[in-house]
C-alpha cells in the first residue's frame, strides 16, 4: 500500500490517499470546501472556481488539483472566502434568480452557498438578461437559472453513451443544449436524476413541484457543508 500524503489545511495536519484531489482529501479530513460545478462521482471540470484554495501561495481549483506531499493549503481564510463570495454574487446577478418563485428554493446549492456566506445583497448590479424557457416532454429547461456548471452534461447519458445535454456557443452566450429526440426518450427516473443533479432550478421535472414544504427542505435549518464539518 502506498504511503499516505501529508498536507495541511489552515494549519490543520491532514492525511490523503495518493491520487485524491484537494477537495476529496479535505472532505475526508472533515474540512468543507464549497463546490458548485463539481458533483461526487462525476469527472471534475473546475469551471466555477468556487472551490478555489491557495496552495503555497498560488490559487488552485481544489476539485481538479491532486494533493501532493507537504502542500500548505489556505481554505477558510478571509481572502479566499471573499473570492468565493464574489463568485456567488456574480452568479446571482448574471442570471435571473427569483428565489420566491423557484421550486428549487430551499434545495438549491447556489442559494445555500449564498446563505452560508450570508449574502444580504450582491455587490454587483443585477443584469436581468433575457433568457428562454425550453419545454421538453418530461421536463423544463429554465435558462434564466442555469449557471452552466455542466453537471447534467456529464451525468446524463443514454444507455449507449450518447449525451442528452451538451454545451453550445461560447463565452457569455454559452448555453446548455438538449437533444430533443433523445430527451423525448428519457425515463422518469432519468429526468428525476437530472433535476436532482442540477445545483439550481434549471432542470425541472414536469407535473410535480414544491413537494417538500418550507421547513423540511435540505438547507432550511443547516448550512450547506455542515454534514462534512460535523464528521471530525
Amino acid at each position, binding site marked *: 500500500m502506498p504511503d499516505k500524503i501529508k498536507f495541511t489545511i489552515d494549519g490543520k495536519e491532514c492525511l490523503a490517499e495518493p491520487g485524491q484531489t484537494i477537495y476529496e482529501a479535505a472532505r475526508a479530513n472533515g474540512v468543507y470546501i464549497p463546490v458548485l460545478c463539481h458533483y461526487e462521482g462525476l469527472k471534475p471540470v473546475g469551471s466555477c472556481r468556487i472551490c478555489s484554495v491557495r496552495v503555497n501561495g498560488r490559487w488552485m481549483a481544489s476539485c481538479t488539483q491532486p494533493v501532493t506531499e507537504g502542500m500548505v493549503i489556505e481554505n477558510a481564510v478571509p481572502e479566499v472566502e471573499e473570492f468565493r463570495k464574489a463568485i456567488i454574487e456574480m452568479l446571482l446577478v448574471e442570471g435571473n434568480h427569483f428565489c420566491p418563485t423557484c421550486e428549487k428554493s430551499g434545495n438549491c446549492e447556489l442559494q445555500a452557498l449564498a*446563505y452560508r456566506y450570508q449574502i444580504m*445583497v450582491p455587490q454587483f448590479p443585477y443584469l436581468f438578461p433575457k433568457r428562454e424557457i425550453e419545454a421538453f416532454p418530461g421536463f423544463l429547461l429554465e435558462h434564466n437559472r442555469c449557471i452552466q456548471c455542466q453537471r447534467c452534461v456529464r451525468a446524463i447519458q443514454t444507455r449507449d453513451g450518447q449525451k442528452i445535454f451538451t454545451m453550445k456557443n461560447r463565452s457569455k452566450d454559452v448555453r446548455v443544449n438538449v437533444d430533443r429526440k433523445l430527451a423525448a426518450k428519457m425515463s422518469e427516473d432519468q429526468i428525476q436524476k437530472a433535476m436532482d443533479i442540477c445545483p439550481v432550478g434549471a432542470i425541472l421535472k414536469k407535473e410535480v413541484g414544491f413537494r417538500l414544504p418550507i421547513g423540511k427542505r435540505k438547507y432550511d435549518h443547516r448550512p450547506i457543508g455542515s454534514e462534512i464539518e460535523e464528521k471530525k
Partner: protein
Amino acid sequence: MSKPVIATASLAGCFGCHMSFLDIDERILELVELVEFDKSPIDDLKKFTRPVDIGLIEGGCCNVENVEVLRYFRKNCRILVSVGECAVMGGLPAMRNTIPLKECLEEAYLNSLTVAPEDRLIPNDEELPLLLDRVYPCHEIVRIDYFLPGCPPSADLIWEALTALIQGRPMKLDYPLIKYD
C-alpha cells in the same frame, strides 16, 4: 433622551413585508416602548413630521411615484433599510424586466384573453404615475444602508435588525434568519 423614530413605506411591493413586521406578535408591545412611528402606512401619516432615525423600505421602484417616495425617505431618514426581495433586487415585479414595457402593457390591457373588446385601452391618465422602463432595486436609486432579504423577511429577522440598529450593536444573524423565499 427621546425615543428613536422609525418610518416605513411600501413601494412596488405587496405589503407582505409589513405583514411580516406585524408577525413580531407580542413584541409589538415592546416596540411601542422602544420607538416612535413617523410616516408609515401603519399610522397613516402621509408626510414626515420630524427627522427620522430608521426608514424601512418595502418594494422596489416600478414607477415615478416610487422613486419620489424613496428619495423623500432618503432625505428624511438617517438610516435606510431595504426590507424584502423586492426592495433588495426588484423581486417578483422585476420579472417584467426582460420584457419591453410596451409589450407588458399590450399584453395586460389589449391582447389578454380576459380583456373585453370594448375595454381595450392602455391606461394613460395624468393621475397615474408613469411606469419606469424596468423595475429597479432601491439601492440603484438612492444609497441604502442595510439589506434584509426574504420574501418576506421573517419577523425574527426584522426584529433582530431593528433592535440591533436601535441599540447600536451588530446584528446577530443566525443561519435560519437569512432566506430568499
